[in-house]
C-alpha cells in the first residue's frame, strides 16, 4: 500500500509547483466563499452598502477635484474624468494592498491548524478588492456618457489594462503579506506609502504635465505606465502607447513572479512565525 502523503524535510526554494497548483485549484471555492463572506460582513451586498461603495469614490474624486481647482490646474470636464478614472483604478491597487497586508497574519488560526496553500489568503484579499472595484467601472461608464467623452473601439484596451493592474496588485499583495509576517509594523507604514504613490502617479495631474526634470518618476513608478495608458484609453478613447503597455506588463509580471517566489519559498515556516 502506498502512502497518501509523505512528509519529509523540505529544501530551500520552491515547493513542487504542480502539486501546489493542484491543491490550490482544489480549494478555489475557499477563495470565492471567503470573499463573499467578507463582503457580506462589510455589508457590500446590501443596497446601502452598494450605494456607499459608489458614493465613496465619487466623494473622493470630488474632493480632489476641488484641490485641483484651488491649486490652479486644468479644471475642465476632461480633467475631472481623468481624475475619477485614475482614482478608481488606483484604489483597486490601494485596496488590494490594505486588504492583503494582514491577510496572512490575521489568518493565524487557520494557518496553525490546517494544511493549505497559504497563498490563498492574499489571493482572497485581491478578489475582495476586485469586487469593490466593479461598481466603480459602471459609475465611470455613466459619468463619461454624461460628460460626452469620445467613444471608440479603443475603449476595449481597458480590458488588458485592468488585467495588468490586477496581476500587479496581486503580486504586490502576495509580497507584502509575506513581509508583514516578519515585520508586523509594515501595515502602519502602508498609508504613507500609498499616499506617496498617489502623488507620484498621474492621477491628480496628467502624464503630459510632467516636467522633464521629474521624468525619473516615470521610470521608478510602475503605476505610471498603467495609469497613463488607462487615462488615454478610457478618457480620451485613444490607443495606449505600446511602450507603456509593455513596461506595465513587465512590471506586473516581474512583481508577480518575484512576490510569488518569495512567498512560496517562505510559506512553510509561517506556522512557526505567525
Amino acid at each position, binding site marked *: 500500500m502506498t*502512502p497518501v502523503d509523505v512528509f519529509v524535510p*523540505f529544501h530551500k526554494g520552491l515547493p513542487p509547483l504542480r502539486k501546489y497548483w493542484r491543491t490550490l485549484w482544489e480549494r478555489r471555492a475557499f477563495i470565492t466563499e471567503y470573499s463573499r463572506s467578507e463582503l457580506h460582513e462589510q455589508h457590500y451586498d446590501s443596497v446601502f452598502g452598494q450605494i456607499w461603495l459608489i458614493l465613496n469614490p465619487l466623494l473622493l474624486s470630488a474632493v480632489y477635484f476641488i484641490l485641483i481647482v484651488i491649486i490652479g490646474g486644468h479644471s475642465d470636464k476632461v480633467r475631472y474624468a481623468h481624475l475619477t478614472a485614475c482614482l478608481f483604478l488606483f484604489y483597486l491597487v490601494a485596496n488590494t494592498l490594505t486588504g492583503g497586508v494582514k491577510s496572512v497574519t490575521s489568518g493565524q488560526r487557520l494557518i496553525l491548524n490546517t494544511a*493549505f496553500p497559504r497563498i490563498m489568503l492574499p489571493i482572497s484579499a485581491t478578489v475582495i478588492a476586485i469586487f469593490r472595484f466593479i461598481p466603480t467601472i459602471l459609475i465611470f461608464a455613466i459619468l463619461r456618457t454624461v460628460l460626452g467623452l469620445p467613444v471608440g473601439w479603443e475603449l476595449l484596451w481597458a480590458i488588458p489594462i485592468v488585467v495588468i493592474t490586477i496581476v500587479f496588485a496581486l503580486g504586490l499583495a502576495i509580497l507584502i503579506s509575506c513581509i508583514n509576517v516578519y*515585520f508586523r509594523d509594515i501595515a502602519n507604514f502602508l498609508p504613507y506609502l500609498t499616499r506617496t504613490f498617489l502623488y507620484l502617479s498621474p492621477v491628480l495631474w496628467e502624464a503630459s504635465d510632467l516636467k522633464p526634470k521629474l521624468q525619473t518618476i516615470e521610470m521608478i513608478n510602475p503605476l505610471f505606465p498603467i495609469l497613463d495608458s488607462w487615462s488615454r484609453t478610457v478618457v480620451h478613447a485613444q490607443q495606449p502607447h505600446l511602450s507603456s503597455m509593455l513596461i506595465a506588463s513587465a512590471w506586473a509580471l516581474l512583481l508577480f513572479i518575484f512576490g510569488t517566489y518569495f512567498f512560496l519559498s517562505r510559506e512553510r515556516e509561517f506556522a512557526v512565525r505567525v
Partner: protein
Amino acid sequence: MSNTVHTSGEIAVSVQHLGLTYTTTIDRRPTLKSRLKSMGRGTKQTQVIRALDDIMLDVPYGSVLGVVGANGAGKSTLMRVISGILPPSQGRVEVYGKVSTLLALGVGFSPSLSGRANVRLGGLAAGMSRQEIEDHFEEIADFAELGDSIDAPMRTYSSGMYARLAFSVAVTVRPDILIVDEALSTGDARFKEKSLEKIKELRSDARALILVSHALGTVKDICNEVAWLHKGKLIQRGKPDEVVDAYADFLHVRKSAVIDEDI
C-alpha cells in the same frame, strides 16, 4: 472525506525518526522598528527551538493512540507535523489516508464572521467540497447544540461554545485518521460526557484515532496505546496503564482526583 475502507491493523500513520527544529523570533510580534533599533548592537532576533527529537511512532487503523505529556512537550507540534502543517526537519512521516488536519481548531479564524461561515471556510480550506460541508452541516450544528448562535459572529462566542463547535466539526467530518487535540476539555459536564460517548462510538469504526489529552482517566479508558512525550522526546510508549501510571508518577500527582476526572 474518503470512502476507502481500511482494515483494522493496517498502518495509518508511520512516524520515523522525526525531528523538528525551527527558528522563531524572540519578540512575539517582530517589527521593523525594533529591528532597526537593535541594529549594530548585535542582539539576537531569533532563537532556535528543538521541538521534536527522534520520534518513532506507528498508529494502525482500528486503534486509539493517546498522547500525554506536560505543557510544551511537543504534543501539538507532533500533531501539526502529522497533519502536514509543519514540515519535519529530520525523518519522515507517512500518512495512509485523509487526516482531519486539526480542522476543528482552525474554525473561528475570522471572528467577525458567523459560526456557520467559519465552519464552511475551515472545511473549504481543508480541501472539502461545498457539498461535503453542506451534507455534514446539520449534524455539526445539532451536535454542538448552539441553536441560533450558529449564525452569530464568532467573537460573541464563549470559550465553551467555541470548544463545542470545534469538537463537533472534528468528529462529524469523517476522516480516516482523526486527531482530537484537547479541544474537548472545555464545555460543561453534560457536553463532556456527550463527547466522550462520541469518541467511543468513533473508536469502533475502521479508522485511526489520536487523542491528545491531559485527562489521564479518559486516556486509560479508551486508548489502546499511549505515548508519553517530554520536551520533544518520546519517553515511553506502550500499554495505557503502564505509560499513564509512569507519567503520573513522574508528575507526582498519582491518584489525584484532578487528573482523572477531566476528559
